[in-house]
């Protein structure tokens, strides 16, 4: 072959580079890359990240008590309330007021530096939030209130000013979110465990049919071999997400759909891996046992199984690990478990709770990763 002239070579390289640049530029525009926006919308992202970083983990049980004082509007329509002289108490600057009049409310000996909700208990029994205040270090606050016409005394019953005090009792307790996340996480882990187990039970025998060194003998054998091999390949073409969407549509949202989707996907994946393990065994022992007069099943049991068990176990554990990870995602499209919980919290703008779920996923995935690596190291 003759060497290309230098000019032609350079032109060709230049054209090639130009083409690559054009293609990359096109993909840049097609995907709507907007770098300034990344900075402009930083506060939005920061809010989310802050919420995720402060997951809802623990709550303190609180005891709620209500302090109140009768406050007739207008004056004289009902007896005035008499505040106690010690303990948490509400002290209005006037004992009663005309509708529309403003007055100052003082609170004393409330829990220090805490939030207090001041509200009206209307004569008809309904409540009307007045103001939310923060007490100082001594447990006191002042607020300006207006006596609104709705407070007018009815049937000799006056309105009442109330403040709610919440006092923590007992120690820290797992929050509702933490308990929900723990429950859903277990559902997810068991989803992965169940689907891996079922998939193993189905994939292990099938993998022998899809192993050329075991099955591919004669016409029938070849037929079975190609059939089982194509079965694995066809299912493998479907992504777990697609599979989960189909099953969620079919069976409704929930772990059952998730387990089925994971099982089908795992059968294909494990079946293919298993059959490759079976194909890579040392054929010597097979030959030896055939020569002894052992039948096909005996040969598999004594010559094949001992050779494949460590690899099989390793792949099974690896898939459990993978399935925990996938099931968090397929939960998102309706497969139940932690993924479903996460999608609900995010859609409901409960980012702290979503943060709890995210942390749980990170921890469990990391743990499974570590465990599966440890176990596999030991088995092989």
């Amino acid at each position, binding site marked *: 072959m003759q060497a290309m002239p230098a000019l032609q070579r350079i032109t060709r390289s230049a054209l090639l580079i130009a083409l690559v640049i054009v293609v990359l530029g096109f993909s840049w525009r097609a995907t709507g890359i907007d770098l300034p926006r990344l900075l402009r919308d930083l506060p939005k992202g920061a809010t989310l990240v802050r919420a995720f970083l402060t997951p809802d983990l623990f709550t303190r049980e609180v005891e709620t008590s209500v302090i109140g004082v009768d406050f007739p509007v207008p004056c004289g329509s009902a007896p005035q309330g008499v505040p106690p002289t010690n303990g948490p108490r509400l002290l209005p600057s006037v004992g009663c007021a005309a509708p529309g009049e403003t007055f100052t409310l003082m609170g004393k000996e409330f829990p220090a530096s805490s939030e207090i909700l001041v509200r009206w208990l209307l004569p008809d029994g309904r409540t009307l939030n007045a103001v939310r205040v923060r007490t100082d270090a001594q447990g006191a606050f002042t607020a300006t209130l207006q006596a609104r016409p709705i407070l007018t005394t009815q049937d000799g019953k006056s309105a009442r000013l109330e403040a709610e005090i919440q006092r923590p009792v007992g120690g820290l307790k797992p929050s509702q979110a933490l308990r929900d996340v723990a429950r859903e996480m277990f559902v997810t882990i068991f989803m992965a465990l169940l689907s891996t187990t079922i998939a193993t039970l189905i994939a292990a025998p099938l993998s022998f049919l899809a192993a050329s060194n075991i099955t591919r003998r004669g016409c029938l054998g070849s037929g079975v071999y190609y059939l089982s091999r194509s079965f694995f390949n066809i299912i493998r073409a479907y992504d777990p997400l697609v599979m989960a969407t189909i099953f969620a549509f079919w069976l409704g949202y929930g772990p059952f759909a998730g387990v089925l989707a994971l099982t089908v996907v795992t059968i294909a994946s494990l079946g293919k891996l298993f059959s490759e393990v079976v194909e890579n065994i*040392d054929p*010597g*022992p097979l*030959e*030896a*046992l*055939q*020569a*002894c*007069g*052992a*039948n096909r*099943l*005996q040969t598999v*049991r*004594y*010559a094949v199984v*001992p*050779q494949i*068990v*460590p690899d099989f176990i390793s792949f099974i554990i690896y898939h459990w690990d993978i399935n925990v990870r996938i099931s968090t995602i397929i939960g998102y499209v309706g497969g139940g478990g932690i993924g479903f919980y996460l999608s609900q919290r995010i859609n409901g703008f409960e980012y702290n709770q979503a943060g709890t779920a995210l942390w749980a996923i990170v921890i469990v995935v990391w743990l499974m990763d570590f465990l599966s690596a440890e176990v596999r190291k030991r088995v092989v």
Partner: protein
Amino acid sequence: MLRVEHLTKIYPNGTVALKDVSFEVPDGEFLVVIGLSGSGKSTLLRCINRLIEPTEGKIYWNDVDITAASPAQLRQIRRQIGMIFQQFNLVRRSKVITNVLAGRLGYVNPWLSLLGIWPAEERRRALAALERVGIADKAYERADALSGGQQQRVGIARALMQEPRLILADEPVASLDPVLAHSILQYLEELNKEGVTVICSLHFLDLVHRYATRVIALKQGVKVFEGKPQEIDRQRFKEIYGEEAQEVRAASL
């Protein structure tokens, strides 16, 4: 009595491994097959128990046509024919005793054997077989923990479990240190003296002289010599192995 008639094997890729080979092996003989690597020795041995299907020709074992046997009949025939391999062909991860018991698979209840249940009698038989080849103390070790010579003895113990009438040994000492060759072949000789027919492929001419009662030689799939071991002199040797061949004596190593 084993009778091989006009045996031909052509592999699917067109290689002619055996071409019209005929010979007879009377009971109690120690027949050694010699020839270069690729001359068809392994193919010949594997055609006898049909690990490889012959293309043409007939093989009779005590007047039963092996080449026409149904799968069930073939298993019946195979269990009387022990086989020993160059690479030992043990299940490396299994225990020695499991490897030896596996030699008995053609005799025991297939369903129990699939569950891994072996009658006490068979376990005793396996330990006795290991005792005979001198490694009873290794029975519960993993096969791959043993040295090459010990592994080949496990291979012999496995063949012993079959109570064989015929033993096919495919270069049983070629993967071993030459000094171990005699220790392995002596077991075969011992069995031969008890009346078991042995067909064995070998490389070293002095081993042929020492153990064979009769010799056949293959060259490119064709039988080029059949006779007494003493008849193989330097001249014959050159004919079989080609002009460049140099005889190596195991004893000199």
